[in-house]
């Protein structure tokens, strides 16, 4: 118990205690006060945790010791501290936004107490997952995490889609845990220990270690949502209450990434094919994730698919890191892992930002179909602004944080190509182009989202749009982070670099990540901002001088334009979606009558998930029909039962007789 002597650590404990304490406050009878007080307590606990994290070695100049506590059950090395930092950082704004979001459930006479209990358990168990150092403890916290997420997910359980989506999540997490069992059993068998800190294997030894790697890739890949294991994700995340789906998309799927990193730490250095595997899987996930997203009309579904894309980008980064570790190039390794880790943080930030924003919209409009929205910018200027910030960031456009991490990944590509010559440049160039392609698609997707939701005029009349202080606080905080990391990435890059140098590298540490001329970014972006501001002032001046007025938009002479004549989401994305029709399962329903008289005509476009509709469901139905065909077992006549006994006895007897 001398662990408690350590001040930073005791603060850590206190933080957990307070977070747990939040459950107690739910016993208050009045829902609103209960919710409010317990969220406040929870936030306090999280902030304390964040402070303790900041006080840890990761954020100071000293070497990260990688200490273990509680008889080796908990271990705080660079990776753990980094991820726990992400968790706490994201959990704070989501919880804050929850105060206003959950209140509207209370308005609907729906009790949110059970939800909030599971939410708190989810937060705590997630933090346990990343600091666990003992296999069983890890698995337990992992399952508690998944299941509490599930139980929180079913808040609106009487809805059909909620049942469906949550069930997808439930089944997927069960498959996952089975795979993890096998993987950890193999690890345990290989090393004879239950502790992560003792797991050090080298790929040289036989088939088992590659098997472990593949299993971890599948198991954690399901959680992270790599294609083709992503199919549950766009089903599950949209139907969760937005507070939860923000946390799910922001943090929980990152646990898969954490797992992959962990496995790498067990098995490093990995051979090169692992790197290529991850690169290819990541690229596929990135491209098709965003392409699926482009075909969606349900805002949260769209964002969920974007998580797949970003996970893909992270995977690409990890792949580069693996290649670096395979060829013992610490510079490449640093760049790859650095990009991946930083993008993990960035995605956590802007994805939760976007989800919370969509939550605000859903709360007010009660719909998630963006085809019915529009013109919200005139009702909620700041929400639109924050959402825009998030969108720019997620599209990897400077000067926001998304660009920084993608830049690191790009640099990783170039570095790899230059370090190991011969055929690498071509392959790397392919990936460079692929990433650029993803960027273009993301731009298309988020211009679509923003313009269809916020810009133009309202396609459907909005009664009242109310956004509370909590929304502003959480969204503002997150978009501030986006801008901060974009404009001044040095400290974050430093942290990431430190995480990597604590145990990732098999060579001597490299300063490739630090030596990128970050000050240029600060310079350029700030001058960009200044330039814009100056120009804006100039513009105002000129407008004052020469006048400014507003008039109706140019309708090519046609006077009374209606909101329904605006470019809709499906028409915006149609040209792009028709390219990979078959993979997107993209169907258009056009009804245009050829009668000379004007009659109502319509256009609809849908996209279904390939893996889900072409692989998973068919398999399930096949098994069902198979089971239905086995009739002889379901006899009702007792004489058959007796006959079974006789038959089985004779069979067994025969076996017994023939047994040597």
């Amino acid at each position, binding site marked *: 118990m001398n662990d408690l002597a350590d001040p930073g650590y005791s603060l850590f404990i206190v933080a957990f205690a307070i977070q747990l304490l939040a459950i107690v406050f739910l016993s208050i009878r009045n829902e609103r006060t209960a919710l409010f007080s317990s969220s406040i307590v929870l936030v306090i606990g999280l902030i304390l945790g964040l402070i303790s994290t900041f006080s840890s070695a990761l954020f100071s100049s000293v070497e990260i010791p990688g200490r273990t506590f509680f008889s080796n059950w908990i271990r705080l090395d660079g990776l753990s501290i980094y991820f726990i930092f992400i968790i706490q950082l994201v959990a704070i704004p989501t919880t804050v936004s929850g105060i206003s979001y959950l209140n509207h459930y209370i308005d609907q006479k729906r009790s949110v107490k059970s939800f909030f209990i599971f939410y708190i358990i989810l937060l705590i168990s997630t933090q346990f997952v990343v600091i666990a150092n003992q296999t069983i403890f890890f698995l337990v916290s992992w399952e508690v995490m998944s299941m509490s997420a599930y139980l929180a997910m079913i808040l609106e359980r009487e809805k059909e889609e909620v049942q469906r989506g949550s069930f997808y999540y439930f089944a997927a997490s069960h498959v996952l845990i089975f795979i993890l*069992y096998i993987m950890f059993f193999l690890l345990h068998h290989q090393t004879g220990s239950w502790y992560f800190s003792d797991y050090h294997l080298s790929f040289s030894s036989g088939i088992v270690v590659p098997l472990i790697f593949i299993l971890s890739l599948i198991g954690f890949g399901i959680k992270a949502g790599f294609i083709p294991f992503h199919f549950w994700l766009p089903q599950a995340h949209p139907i969760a209450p937005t507070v939860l789906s923000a946390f799910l998309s922001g943090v929980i799927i990152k646990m898969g990434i954490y797992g992959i990193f962990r496995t790498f730490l067990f098995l490093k250095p990995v051979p090169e094919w692992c790197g290529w595997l991850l690169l290819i899987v990541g690229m596929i996930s990135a491209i098709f994730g965003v392409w699926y997203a482009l075909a969606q009309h349900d805002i949260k579904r769209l964002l969920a698919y974007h998580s797949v894309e970003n996970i893909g980008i992270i995977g690409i980064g990890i792949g580069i890191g693996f290649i670096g570790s395979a060829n013992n190039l610490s510079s490449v390794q640093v760049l790859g892992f650095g990009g991946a880790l930083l993008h993990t943080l960035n995605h956590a930030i802007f994805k939760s930002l976007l989800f919370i924003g969509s939550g605000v919209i859903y709360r007010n409009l009660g719909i998630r179909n963006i085809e019915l929205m529009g013109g919200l910018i005139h009702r909620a200027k700041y929400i639109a602004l924050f959402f825009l910030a998030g969108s720019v960031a997620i599209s990897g456009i400077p000067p926001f944080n998304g660009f920084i991490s993608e830049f690191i990944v790009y640099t990783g590509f170039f570095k790899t190509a230059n370090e190991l010559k011969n055929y690498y440049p071509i392959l790397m160039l392919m990936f460079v182009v692929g990433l650029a392609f993803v960027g273009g698609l993301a731009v298309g997707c988020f211009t679509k989202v923003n313009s269809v939701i916020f810009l133009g005029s309202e396609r459907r009349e909005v009664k009242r749009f109310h956004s509370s202080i909590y929304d502003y606080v959480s969204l503002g905080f997150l978009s501030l982070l986006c801008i901060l990391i974009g404009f001044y990435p040095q400290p974050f890059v430093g942290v990431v670099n430190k995480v990597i140098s604590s145990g990732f590298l098999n060579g001597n540490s490299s300063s490739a990540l630090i030596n990128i001329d970050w000050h240029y970014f600060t310079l350029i972006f700030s001058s960009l901002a200044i330039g814009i501001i100056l120009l804006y002032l100039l513009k105002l001046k000129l407008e004052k001088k020469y006048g400014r007025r507003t008039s109706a938009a140019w309708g090519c002479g046609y006077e009374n334009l209606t909101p329904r004549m605006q470019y809709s989401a499906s028409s915006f994305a149609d040209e792009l979606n028709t390219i990979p029709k078959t993979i997107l399962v993209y169907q258009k329903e056009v009804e245009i009558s050829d009668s000379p008289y004007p009659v109502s005509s319509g256009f609809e476009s849908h996209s279904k998930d390939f893996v889900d509709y072409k692989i998973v469901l068919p398999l399930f139905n096949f098994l069902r029909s198979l*089971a239905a065909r086995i009739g002889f077992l379901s006899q009702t006549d007792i004489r058959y039962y007796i006959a079974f006994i006789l038959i089985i006895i004779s069979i067994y007897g025969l076996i017994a007789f023939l047994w040597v």
Partner: protein
Amino acid sequence: MLEFSIFILIPLASAGLCYLIKNLRVQYAISLFVSTIHLGLSLAVFLGLHHTLLPTFFGVDSLSKFFILILSNVYFWVVLVSYSYLKRPVMPRAEEGKRFYFMLLNFYLAANSAAMLSSHFGMYWVAAEATTLSVAPLIYFYRNEESLEAMWKYLFLVSIGIAFAFIGILLLTLSAKGTSLAGGQLFFWEFIRKAGQLNPIWLKASFVFIFVGLSTKIGIAPMHSGDIDATSNAPSPIAALMSGSLRLTALLGVLRIFQIIRPTSSFEFAKTLLIIGALLSLFVAFVFMFRVNNYKRLLAYSSVEHLGLISLGLGIGGLAFVGALYHAIYNSITKVVLFLMAGNIHSRFKSREVDKIRSVLNVLPKTGWLFILAFMAISGIPPLGIFFSEIKIFEGILFSDKPYLLAVVMFFLLFIFVNMGKIIFTMLYKKGDDDKLQSGVEKFELTHFVAIVLLILLVAIAVAAPDKVNLNIIDIAKDFGVKL
């Protein structure tokens, strides 16, 4: 003699009392008292505070210690809730059933304890048959067609199965012919000691007969049908009792012969048979989870699945053996919770059809949440116990000589889980068409209390991992020569 009387005679006597006394409340008090002291004693015996000396034909070893603790634990809770269960407005025809309810329960306790403590095959056989006889009328509790049919089928099938087990016993004596055991008594320990001399062919034959015969009672496919019918039509406490303890009683018999066969050359054969049976039961559960539309049958099939898992673990040996024994505890406890909650649902909705049960979580919130938790427990979600036993079994399989089995098992378990989840969640979430049920606030009943206690117990055993249990299980493993 004291233990003997507490374990067997007093239950018998109280059965007689319950027959004489007409007042239900008094019967309840008596049986509760009996069950309490029974539980106390079996705990004491288990913890080794109290060394038992039982008359001939009876004896205590680590295995029976273990099983009788499970039995009296399950039995205690079942008796505890029985009264409130009987007080419910059930079908009018059940009035007659209530009269004999406690009598039969006590008789069951006596018979089952006798079966668990018996050190002699003949004794075991008589007691096991007696448990069947005591349970059969309880299955017929509701006095309706289904329960009658279920009782008939169960009685008939299990009697024949038991008869086969008897043949097995006779074959065992035959295998002892010409050895030092010839003409001796059928004591387990003697046979185990001198197992090497037994004639392998007759031994194998006797294993086959005993295994298949008792399978009707354990519920190992394809002899599971009678069990399914019985468990799904019996009143919930009885169903809990059957799934929790009766199946284990039968399993004990198989374990005994298994223990005898171990040192001989036919051990591999026995293991193979156990594994085949286990896989068949998993398969059956897998198939029927796709079709079943009656939630008590669903739970019954889940029992089949889990008994299959247990016998698989026993067959695989090694770590899986230990896991299987843990699984026996956890499964028995979880099944009690599941069946009690199912009973609550049944007494509210008056139906066992899944399609007629809607939005339980709104109508019966407490029951609903406990049901979800119990379902999670049964499907191996930590920190609820079964997780820990399951991973032991899995790891045991993975590092046994048949690792490929793990893939099959996981496949079956996965789809069983998926379908079970689908059905249960439909019951819990889907909105019913009639709103007269929707407006229901549920008051906290004894069953809820019991369920919570048992779930806590489930977590406690798993997390605290009491040393006694572990040591005892290690002892059992030693008796079976399992090397860990």
